[in-house]
Each structure stands twice: as C-alpha cells, then as structure tokens.
C-alpha cells in the first residue's frame, strides 16, 4: 500500500521544528510500524536526506523505548500495544498518517521523535525502591504474600515506563506512571517500611519535574500499552494523604 506521512522534524532541542511530508510506497501490511519507518529511512538515506530519528530497541513491546504519537494517539490506533507492535494492516492504502513526538515540558524533544524521559528515572530515584542491600535478606518463602495481592502488585509492576500516559493526558500528568510504582510497593509487605517516605518523595519529585495534575479523565489508562488501571492513582492519593497526615516528617 501507499501512504503519506506527516512527521515532526526537529534538529535538536533548541530547534523550533516543523512537520515534513513524505510518501512511501509498496508497504506490506505485515510490516510493523517501525519497519515502515525503516523503509522510509532507507529511502531518505538513499536520497541523501537525514533519516528520521526515533527511539526503539526491543521491538517486542516490553522495553518501553518506542514513543510515537500516531494520528492523535500515543502508540497509534490500537489498544494495549506499543508502537513497535503496531502493524501496517491497521491502516488503509492511501492513508495520511501524522506522527509526532511525546509532548510534555518534562519530556523535552532531543531530535525529531526522540524525547528525553530521564524525569521518570529521577522519580524512581526519589523513592521507587525498597532499601535492601545485596545479601542479608530473609529466605524468599519467609515472606508469604496472598496470591491476589501478588497479582495486583504484578498488574501495577508491568509498567514499561514508555510515557504514553503523559503523552495522552491533556495535562501531561505522570500520575499513572508514579502510581503504578507506588501501588506495587505499597501492596507488598516488603514495601511497608518505607511506605510513607516513598510516596511523599516521589510526588515531590514528580511535581518538581513539571508534570501536570490529574483531572481523572482516564485517557492514560485508555492508551497504556500494559493496561494499568487508574485505580492505582486513587491508591496513590490515599497513600499520599495518609503519609502526609501521619508521617513524622514536619
């Protein structure tokens, strides 16, 4: 099939950037969206034009690196998948596809469709862990965990940190990402010791990074490739206020 692509091009973070239009032909419906971009890039290089830069790595939907805003939705039109898992059979011959980078103050564009998501790393660094050193931990089976609790923690832990939630949110809020980690660790017995300080610090970092607030529209949940639920946000709010009210930190 033949397609028209309108792609955001931006030389670097200082550049203003603009859309450019490209035509690709003979696209197989079995190609993945990123393979279609590979074809386009080969075409561009052969014409001695700078290829389009985009983030990608595992190409099987788990590393969270790919990040394209396709026709108005993060990761494209299909639910519960990442851009690399999107296949061209989801489009029609003659379609025009608009591809933009994630847009958020906390995700500055580095080049074309590549954004800097290190703000997510800094939020995890603020408290998204359990402080245990290597060695000196109890036997794994000394910490029994109810199966449903383990499952719920796993549901939250599946987050791949791609940032689609931020990209989709009208406020560029990172609540779903932060709440997934807060929930995972708040649910598990191992996470209880640092429960209060964790949520306080992570929220403070999140605010400092310039993400927006949550309006509970649910757009994040709708586009999350791992279908992480906004019930995690409610849990995080609960955790936050009970921590703020009861923690010893003044």
């Amino acid at each position, binding site marked *: 099939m033949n397609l028209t692509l309108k792609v955001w091009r931006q030389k670097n973070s200082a550049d203003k950037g603009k859309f450019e239009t490209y035509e690709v032909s003979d696209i197989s419906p079995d190609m993945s969206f990123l393979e279609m971009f590979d074809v386009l890039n080969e075409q561009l290089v052969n014409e001695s034009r700078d290829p389009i830069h985009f983030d990608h790595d595992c190409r099987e939907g788990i590393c969270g690196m790919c990040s394209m805003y396709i026709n108005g939705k993060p990761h494209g039109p299909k639910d519960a998948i990442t851009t690399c898992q999107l296949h061209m059979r989801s489009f029609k011959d003659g379609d025009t596809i608009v591809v933009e980078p994630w847009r958020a103050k906390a995700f500055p564009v580095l080049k074309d469709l590549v954004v800097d998501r290190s703000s997510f790393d800094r939020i995890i660094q603020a408290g998204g862990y359990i402080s245990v050193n290597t060695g000196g931990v109890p036997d794994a089976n000394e910490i029994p965990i109810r199966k449903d609790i383990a499952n719920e923690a796993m549901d939250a832990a599946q987050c791949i940190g791609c940032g689609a939630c931020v990209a989709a949110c009208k406020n560029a809020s990172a609540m779903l990402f932060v709440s997934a980690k807060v929930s995972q660790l708040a649910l598990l017995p191992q996470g209880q010791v640092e429960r209060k300080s964790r949520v306080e610090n992570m929220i403070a970092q999140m605010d400092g990074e310039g993400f927006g607030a949550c309006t509970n529209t649910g757009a994040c949940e709708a586009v999350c490739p791992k279908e992480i639920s906004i019930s995690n946000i*409610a849990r995080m709010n609960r955790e936050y206020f009970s921590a703020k009210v009861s923690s010893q930190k003044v």
Partner: protein
Amino acid sequence: MSWLTETLTSTLGRKVIMALTGIFLILFLAVHLTGNLQLLKNDGGEAFNIYAEFMSTNPLIQFVSKGNFFFILLHVLISIFLTRKNRQARPVSYQVAVKSETSTWSSRNMGILGTLIFVFLIIHLKGFWYEMHFGQIPYKNYDGFEARDLYAVVDQAFSQWYWVAVYLVGMLAVAFHLSHGFQSAFQTLGLNHVKYSPAIRFVGLAFAILVPAGFAAIPIMMFFT
C-alpha cells in the same frame, strides 16, 4: 515550607481541595434544590418565601452560606492555579489529537464548564441573592411571620424567556460538570473500591441528571404557568 503548606500546594493537595470543596458544593446543591422546589407549590409563594426569609436571616445558615461562598471561590481559584500548571506542562500542543476515544468530553472540559457555571452564578446571584440581601423587596405577612416576597421576584424573572434560557444553559453546564466531577472527587480522595466504585459512578450520574433537571424544571414550569 511546613508539611501542611507543602501538602496543600502539591498537585495532589490542590486536587484534594478541589474534591473537598466540590463535594461540599454538591451537598449544597441538594439542599438548595429541596428549598427551591417549594416554588412549584401552588400556594402563591408562601412556603418559599418563609423558607427564603429563614435562610437569609438565620445566623447559622448565614455562617454556612459564607462558607459556601468561600468554597466556591476556593474551588475557582485552585482550578485556575491547576489549569495554569497543566498548560505549562505541555508547552507545545499536538497537531492531531483524537481524545474522544480515550476520555469523555466533560472530563476534558471541566474548566470551560466551570467558567460557564461561574458566569451563570454571577447572573443568578445578582438576580436573586443580591435582591434579597440588598434590594428593596416588599414584605408579606404569613400568619404573623414577616417574609419578603422573593417569590414575586422569581415569578417575574421566569416569565421572561431569556431568564429561562440562561437557567437552562446554566443547568446544562452543571449537569456535565457534575457527571465528571462527582465520581472524580471520590477518585481524587482515593475512595475507590472494586465493590463500591460502580455504585459511586451510578449515584454520580443519577445526581448529575436529576438535580440539574430538578432546578431546570422550576423556570420551565413557572414560565408556562
């Protein structure tokens, strides 16, 4: 910064203020509607006027009423803060966005709905509340109880089609605002549960339809009778 200011100025803290003031205003709406439905009583406004006189003179009610104004202003003020922060969080907007697939219209337009409601509120307060407190409304005597004839003011207003129209638009905005706001407040406060959240959503939706419909019925019926 003390922990309290830190909490209340965080995005989550501000959202909680929105939720708490929102819930207070929801309660207020319920009370307000119960009182106002007396306008439809076929008694020439007696019940309503007595009720209105009581409400505008009772010190306790007056205290709550001041609180009500404060909460409305707080709700508006915080929403302005939040909206500004949210705007800043996305300095460059998208060329294309299909939001309808991922969220409801009202959830995305709480600000616009809120602004509409605020404008409506000013008109509404000027028309009735201001008149009641600072205007010259003649008194009527009901079995020895002196009450101002607010009913006449209302009746006069709702005999004009544009007053009715303003109220209908206002109530429509309230309905949409509530359809998202009611359940959203609970989500913000972290009050969600797999068993009870569907009930909260149901009650929220029912409230968002019935209460504005109840308010809207008043001008319509008064206009036609």
